[in-house]
């Protein structure tokens, strides 16, 4: 059980695909302008990643090593086609909002990377957890980015249920007159992601220097004692 939790934490946080590995930025940047589209994209990626990881892990002993990449591509493309068709049927408005980025999940490096690095070498259940963890990290990243963009850019926060197209909540955080509408546009996407990366870098540098100082203090103390 503890090993399973470790797989989840490693794939979701310490190897976060967006902020640590910088993979799959196209869809993160393009669909994070509102919370609703970000959640939709994150969940679509989650379904695709869990399905492909599970299928590839189940077939890992049958797939010949020489042609594994084309086989993975076919599995991923078929899964995305299925998800795309289901979403066209049940969440038509969301599909229009996500546009071509939904089908571009096929070339999202995260999915290929997990197939090659994890699912092709591990048991089905572990691969399913890894897929869930990686996609969870993706979902968290895209939600954080969309929250910042929507709140700073419009001054309010709205969430629309993709199935019924009814507004679930719509909060006004501050007056729209003070909103910086640039943040909803593509400039805001690049700018906020850049600033977030810098903040994460600064935080991790702070933590590592703190750890180093504590270690030195401990050594100094030990030397005196």
């Amino acid at each position, binding site marked *: 059980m503890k090993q399973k939790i470790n797989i989840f934490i490693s794939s979701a946080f310490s190897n976060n695909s967006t902020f640590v590995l910088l993979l799959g930025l196209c869809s993160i940047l393009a669909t994070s302008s509102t919370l609703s589209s970000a959640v939709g994209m994150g969940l679509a990626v989650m379904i695709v990643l869990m399905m492909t990881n599970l299928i590839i892990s189940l077939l890992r002993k049958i797939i010949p090593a020489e042609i594994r990449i*084309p086989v993975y*591509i076919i599995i991923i493309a078929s899964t995305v086609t299925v998800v795309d068709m289901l979403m066209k049927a049940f969440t038509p408005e969301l599909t229009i909002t996500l546009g*071509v980025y939904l089908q*571009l999940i096929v070339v*999202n490096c995260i999915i290929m990377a997990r197939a090659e690095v994890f699912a092709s070498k591990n048991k089905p259940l572990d691969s399913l957890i890894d897929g869930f963890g990686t996609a969870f990290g993706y979902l968290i990243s895209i939600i954080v980015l969309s929250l910042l963009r929507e709140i700073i850019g419009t001054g309010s926060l709205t969430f629309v249920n993709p199935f019924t197209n009814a507004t679930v909540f719509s909060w006004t955080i501050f007056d729209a007159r003070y909103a910086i509408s640039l943040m909803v546009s*593509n*400039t805001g996407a690049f700018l906020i992601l850049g600033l977030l990366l810098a903040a994460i*870098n600064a935080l991790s540098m702070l933590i590592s220097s703190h750890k180093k100082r504590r270690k030195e203090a401990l050594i100094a103390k030990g030397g005196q004692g």
Partner: protein
Amino acid sequence: MGIVTLIISAMLVSNVVLVRFLGTCPFLGVSKKISNAIGLGLATIFVVFFSSLLSYGLYHLVLKPLGLEFLSLVSFILIIASFVQFVEMFLKKYIPSLYRSLGIYLPLITTNCIVLAIALENIGNNYSLVETIVYSLSVSAGFLLVLILFSVIRERIDSLNRVPQAFKGAAIALIITALMTMAFFGFQGLV
């Protein structure tokens, strides 16, 4: 839409990287040196042109007459992957000098979303054969243009060596890109 309008809108007004976020990975990854940027940009133009022609032909000659439109995503990605592989083998055997200068970028192009996006959009927008050729060439030329501009700025920023520690690498690159998108807003009124 006129051909000139199509070229301007595909290259500048809705630039692939800056406005539509496609190809962000190679844009950030292969822009540290201008020579690499030019190599990747030219290789992308080449692959985009031929793979969109191939997928256009496949869609209109095979998939549509047989009523298999739902297979377009699977077949396009296969076409792109095998075309890239084919080009790599061909260059390695017959034009080794070009292979050496482009070689490392070719496999990267399969995972470049620009290629697949253009193949899908040519079908989605119901472009004719001429429009397909013009559209795929001008979108990838827009990629080359932005990649060169960006790598020039980046070389200069890196040589100045004044970037704060936390902003080094991808963070400052994304912020430069944000400033470039603002400059490209100027083209918005053109079409």
